């Protein structure tokens, strides 16, 4: 039992380990062998698998859409162009619905977010051992193929969105307007003394509200995908338990994959919509 537990734990841990390249504590750069070494690298390390798959999938998205964009005419669309136009109109409708300001950045941003996250999430539907096994044969020790199960990826996006929120808040409302928004509400007072007294309370509340936006955005996506991936890994463990467990595992994996399609789509959509809503809030004066 003990050895089986150990191998199961090792299997799961192995699947959750990124391919990390970084600065070893002894001052040399190189790949981390194991979670311990990766942790010791601290901030000066980069997850090659996350970077590769996210950039690759982003490239796939841009390539497909660029191909369609080059062929876009006012004539009758067909095939890929039809799909791309449908997607663009879908995003455009959503952005028009929740974003009332005028900003040419928001709609392309929403399009990129939705399809990029969708493609990254979809990697979750590839059976968990396929790509790592191929990587193993190629001599690569670790391979985590779903970038959105890496908090670096989700926080990378949400912090970029957060930067845009701050930028547009400052640009539209001005530094004073933005500061007023953070300090003059939700507690309001006519009396100047009370106003000053309320300031720290308001700043605390609004500050939490503001900071929770990127954090919740990133953690929601990461949490959902990480949990989904985890369940796929646990189901994959069943394959080592003989024919009956293997068949059960196959059925479960199929069922979970079907259910996961919903999560994959939903999380990409939620991330996009909330980004648009947050940017809309940044464009509005109270």
């Amino acid at each position, binding site marked *: 039992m003990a050895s089986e537990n150990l191998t199961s734990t090792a299997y799961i841990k192995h699947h*959750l380990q*990124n391919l*990390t390249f*970084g600065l070893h504590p002894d001052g040399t750069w190189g790949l981390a062998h194991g979670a311990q070494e*990766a*942790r010791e*690298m*601290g*901030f*000066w*390390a*980069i*997850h090659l698998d*996350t*970077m590769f798959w*996210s*950039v690759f999938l*982003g490239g796939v*998205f*841009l390539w497909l*859409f*660029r191909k*369609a*964009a*080059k062929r*876009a*005419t*006012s*004539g009758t*669309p067909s095939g890929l162009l039809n799909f*791309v*136009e449908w997607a*663009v*109109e879908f995003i*455009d409708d959503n952005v028009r619905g929740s974003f009332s300001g005028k900003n*040419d*950045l928001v*709609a*392309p*941003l929403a*399009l*990129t977010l939705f399809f*990029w996250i969708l493609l990254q999430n979809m990697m979750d539907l590839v059976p968990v051992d396929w790509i790592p096994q191929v990587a193993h044969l190629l001599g690569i020790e670790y391979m985590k193929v779903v*970038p959105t199960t*890496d*908090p*670096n*990826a989700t*926080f*990378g*996006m949400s*912090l*970029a969105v957060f930067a845009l929120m701050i930028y547009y808040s400052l640009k539209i409302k001005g530094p004073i307007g933005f500061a007023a928004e953070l300090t003059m509400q939700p507690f309001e007072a006519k009396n100047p003394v009370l106003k000053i007294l309320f300031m720290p309370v308001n700043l605390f509340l609004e500050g939490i509200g503001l900071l929770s936006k990127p954090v919740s955005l990133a953690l929601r996506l990461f949490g959902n995908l990480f949990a989904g991936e985890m369940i796929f890994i646990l189901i994959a463990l069943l394959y080592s338990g003989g024919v009956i467990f293997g068949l059960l595992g196959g059925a479960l994996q199929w069922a979970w994959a079907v259910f996961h399609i919903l999560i994959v789509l939903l999380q990409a959509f939620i991330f996009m919509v909330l980004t648009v809503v947050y940017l809309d809030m940044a464009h509005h004066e109270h």
Partner: protein
Amino acid sequence: MNINLTLIGQSIAFALFVWFCMKFIWPPIMNALEQRKKTIADGLAAGERGKREQELGEQRATEVIKEAKGKAAEVIASAEKRGAEIVEQAKNDAKTEGERIVAAARADIEQEAQRAREALRTEVAALATAGAEQILGREVDAGAHAEMLDELATQL
């Protein structure tokens, strides 16, 4: 699971993707969509216009047909009138001509009769003279009895 440089790498990749999308993907597709919307709207408007024009054309055609019908009726009426006139005229002409012919024929007959009568008279006179000669057995002096003979001829 560690937060590290990947965070920054991802942010940069994200920014580049958004920039590319904003520059090279969104505008052409939106342009195409806008243009198609315009094309469709134009087409529908043209269709509507064509339909209205057709209606107008039909209306005009009906008017033209009505006018033509009226004109045709007029032409027919006047032609009928003219025909009747011509027939009337012809009748009159024929009548006059007939009358003239009849009159001429009568005159001819009269003349012929006159001439016959004249000839007859002359012949009667000659016969009378010959008869008288035979009765008298001698030559009647035509010159001496001319006056008497003429008188006889007129009595016939």
